[in-house]
Every structure is written in structure tokens, then in C-alpha cells.
């Protein structure tokens, strides 16, 4: 009873709250880092250096009026934000924050495939949100978003296969253990895959330079133009939760997950004083910072450039990487 129900339920409760709090602080971090990149101060009014802004923003969104457009399909309009948030949160159930079963909800045999499958459900929220608003800009944005998601999903999944070949397992815990046994992070064995998954992750989460579905100058907002109040906040949460998911996956697969740097060097054993989950969260935040850094630096792609990059550059490289990994695996 305790092992099968209560502990997993507690884990899920801690995890959900941690993710949601992380999202609110990531929004603050994004505003602050962007501000520093542009030589501004960013939010400064609420709390010291604006740190309480992370609490005020969600309260504002909850208190705002929640409008449903008259011509909208009300049922689908309500379901769409839920369909985009739930998969983003479900994925965290297989993310291991440490070697011990206490640090993850489930270690399933098909972990990586599970993540790919569940995130592919998230596209419904975007398509239906745009369609059900019954408004032309959201519809255009949702068509763009889903075409982009589907194109880059192929490249990312294809690249993940070469990582699976290297590790010999689909379980995320197994992948980290394989890196410990290899004595080197997979980021060094599979540098091409590392870059590909990161670029694909940027595109799948609709981040700059692939943020065409939210190109304000052309689309007045994106697929969530007609949403307001808490329902808009759900889309927002889903988007940032997905960014955290991508960062976690990249950190686990290529940067050794919960392990300290150089896990096989004895001289650095004092680093083990820091618990494993802090290592993983630190690595995740490193990637979050890079996401924001890229947003502050790069301009947006044109739509045809985006599609050309996905289909004619990333997918061929992914296939080539897979073939080379296979050949090396057979020869070595």
C-alpha cells in the first residue's frame, strides 16, 4: 500500500508543484536575462530586484476575466489548453532525478519512447486551440505550429535512435548508467546528435529562432490570440514545461543526468557532497539559460527557411548519424 500508492502520489505531488514553480521563476529569469542582454533592469518593483514578480504574475492571470469568443466551439475551446498542458506534465513521470527509486516516479523499459509518444499528443492542444477560436490568425498560427512540430519531430526522433544504439537501452535511468559505465558523457561520443536534438528542441518548443507560430508582427499573437486569463496561462505553462522537458532530456542523454562532472575521476569525489537532483536541476537551468540567450541573440527564420532546415538539413544529418553510429557499433 505504502510502496504502490502513497509514495508515488507524494512524488507526483512534489514533482507537479516543483515544475509549476520552476515555470513561474523561469518566466522571471527570462525577463531578467533578456533585460540584461539589452542593458535594461527588467522587473524591479515587486520585491527585491523584482523576485516576487514570479508570484504576482500568476495571481494576475488567475484574477483576469476569462473570455470565450461567441463564435468559438466552446467545448473544444475549453479542452485545448488542457490537452496541451497535461502531456507536458505527464512526461516528468519518467525523468530520473537520481539513481535511487525515490528520485523518479517510474523507470519504464520504454522510457525514451514514452516521452516521444506523450509529447506528440501535445500538438492537439495547439491545433485545436487555433481551430476552435474560429478566428483567422490563430488558425494560421496553429497550422504553422503543427507543421513545424511534425517536421522537427522526425529529425529529433531519428537522432534519439542513434543515442539508443550507443546506450543499448530505452530506459532513462539505464541511459545515465550507460554513461557511467562508458566513463564519458554521450555529449562527447555523439556531438552531432547533441546539437541536432538541441536545435530540434528549440523548434519543437516554438522558441526563437523558430518562433514563427508566435510571430507577433504577422499573427497578432499566435494560436492563443483569443485566449485570456487562466486558459491563456495554461498554454503558457505548457510551453515552458515543454522547454524544461527538452532541457531535462538533453541533460540526461548528453550531459550525464544526475552525475557530477567526470564521474570516473576520484580526485573530484568531493563534488558528490552535492545531491544528484541538484546536479540535474543545475544542468537543466544551464540549458534554460541557453534558450533565453538564443532568444536575446538571434533573429527569426523565414517560414521556407525553417522548413528547408528541417527537411533538407536536419533529417539527412540525422539519418547519416544513425548509419555511422550503426557501422561503428558493429565494428567496435
Amino acid at each position, binding site marked *: 500500500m505504502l510502496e504502490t500508492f502513497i509514495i508515488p502520489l507524494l512524488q507526483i505531488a512534489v514533482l507537479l508543484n516543483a515544475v509549476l514553480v520552476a515555470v513561474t521563476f523561469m518566466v522571471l529569469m527570462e525577463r531578467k536575462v533578456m533585460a540584461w542582454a539589452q542593458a535594461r533592469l527588467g522587473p524591479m518593483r515587486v520585491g527585491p530586484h523584482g523576485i516576487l514578480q514570479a508570484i504576482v504574475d500568476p495571481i494576475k492571470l488567475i484574477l483576469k476575466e476569462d473570455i470565450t469568443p461567441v463564435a468559438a*466551439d466552446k*467545448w*473544444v475551446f475549453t*479542452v485545448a489548453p488542457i490537452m496541451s498542458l497535461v502531456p507536458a506534465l505527464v512526461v516528468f513521470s519518467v525523468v530520473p532525478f537520481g539513481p535511487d527509486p525515490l528520485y523518479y516516479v517510474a523507470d*519504464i*523499459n*520504454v522510457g525514451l*519512447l*514514452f516521452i*516521444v*509518444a*506523450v509529447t*506528440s*499528443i501535445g*500538438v*492537439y492542444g495547439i*491545433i*485545436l486551440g487555433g*481551430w*476552435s477560436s474560429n478566428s483567422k490568425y490563430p*488558425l494560421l498560427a496553429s497550422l504553422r505550429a*503543427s507543421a513545424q512540430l*511534425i517536421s522537427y519531430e522526425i529529425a529529433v526522433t531519428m537522432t534519439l535512435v542513434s543515442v539508443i544504439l550507443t546506450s543499448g537501452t*530505452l530506459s532513462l535511468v539505464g541511459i545515465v548508467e550507460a554513461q557511467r559505465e562508458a566513463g564519458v558523457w554521450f555529449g562527447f561520443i555523439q556531438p552531432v546528435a547533441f546539437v541536432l536534438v538541441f536545435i530540434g528542441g528549440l523548434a519543437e518548443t516554438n522558441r526563437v529562432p523558430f518562433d514563427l507560430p508566435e510571430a507577433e508582427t504577422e499573427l497578432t499573437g499566435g494560436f492563443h490570440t483569443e485566449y485570456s486569463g487562466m486558459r491563456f496561462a495554461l498554454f503558457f505553462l505548457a510551453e515552458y514545461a515543454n522547454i524544461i522537458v527538452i532541457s531535462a532530456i538533453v541533460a540526461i542523454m548528453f550531459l550525464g543526468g544526475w552525475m557530477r562532472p567526470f564521474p570516473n575521476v576520484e580526485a573530484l569525489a568531493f563534488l558528490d557532497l552535492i545531491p544528484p537532483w541538484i546536479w540535474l536541476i543545475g544542468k537543466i537551468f544551464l540549458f534554460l539559460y541557453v534558450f533565453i540567450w538564443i532568444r536575446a541573440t538571434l533573429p527569426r527564420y523565414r517560414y521556407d527557411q525553417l522548413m528547408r532546415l528541417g527537411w533538407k538539413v536536419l533529417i539527412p544529418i540525422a539519418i547519416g548519424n544513425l548509419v555511422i553510429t550503426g557501422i561503428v557499433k558493429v565494428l567496435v
Partner: protein
Amino acid sequence: MLEAAVFYTLAVLILGLGILVISARSAVHSVLFLVVNFLLVAILYVTLSAQFVAVIQVLVYAGGIVVLYLFVVMLVSLKRAPEQHADTRRLGVTGAVLAGAVLLEVIGIVVSGAARSDAPAGARGAGVPEAISDPMLNTEQIGWVLYTEYLIPFEVASMLLLVAMIGAIVLAKKNL
């Protein structure tokens, strides 16, 4: 006991959603019910310890094929129910005959399966390696069987998909 409760709950939900798929007024609602239906079927696979098949079900059907359905339905914009077919009666008869045939087949399988249930356990599961029943080895076992025993059917199926893909490109492109 718990297993049976889960199975019957899922079965009722899956059948109910199936009925909703064909009876919903809006085509988009139908597609949505279909997605939920596929997700529940995936849970059914998990209860059978077929984790790999469950994930593939979500990935390919719920996450891939139905997205295409949704695109088609959205872009042709079926706000109203489509026009009634001129000859509803003949359609009804054809439907009833087809449904009856499927029902007979299912009953036949169940009855013949029940007749064989007193056969020795080894005879029933002939050709299926024992280790497949171990959920932790699921994916590995499917890979082994697929690339050894069923290599040729697997390759033929992939050729078929390749041909279909090239066919689609040829149809879509006016001048190659």
C-alpha cells in the same frame, strides 16, 4: 480482481467513445473522441504487459495518424453534418450485413478458443518465445523476433511503405 475491474472499465469507456466517434455531430469532435479512444486502448495494452506496443499505439495512431485526420477535417471545414446519402436504406443493409459477419467471426474465435483451452499450455502458445511475457524485456524481444524470424515480412512491409511514400510524392508534385 483488480485486473478484471480495470479491463471492464476500460472496455465500457472504449466502446462508449467508439459510439461517440460515429454519432458526434461535428467531425472535429469525432476526431477528438477517436484520440481518447486510442489512448484508452494503449492503457489496455499496458495492462497486458505490452508496454512497447502501447507506446507505439500512442506514437503512431494517437500522435501521428489522427493528426492527419484532424488536418483534413479542419481544412475542409465540415461545420454542418454532411449531406445525407441518397440511398440510406441500402447503406443500412450493407452495414448490418458487415457488422453481422464481424460478430460471427468474433463468436467463432471465442468458441474455438474455448474448445482449445483444455489443450496443453505449450500447444496453444506455439511459436511465441516464453520471454516475451517478461515486461522488462519486451522491446528487446520484439526486436529479436522482428529481425530474425519475421525478417522478410518486416522488410516487405517497409518496402510497401516506401512505395506508398513515393506514390504520394508523385501524386502531389506536378512537375518533378
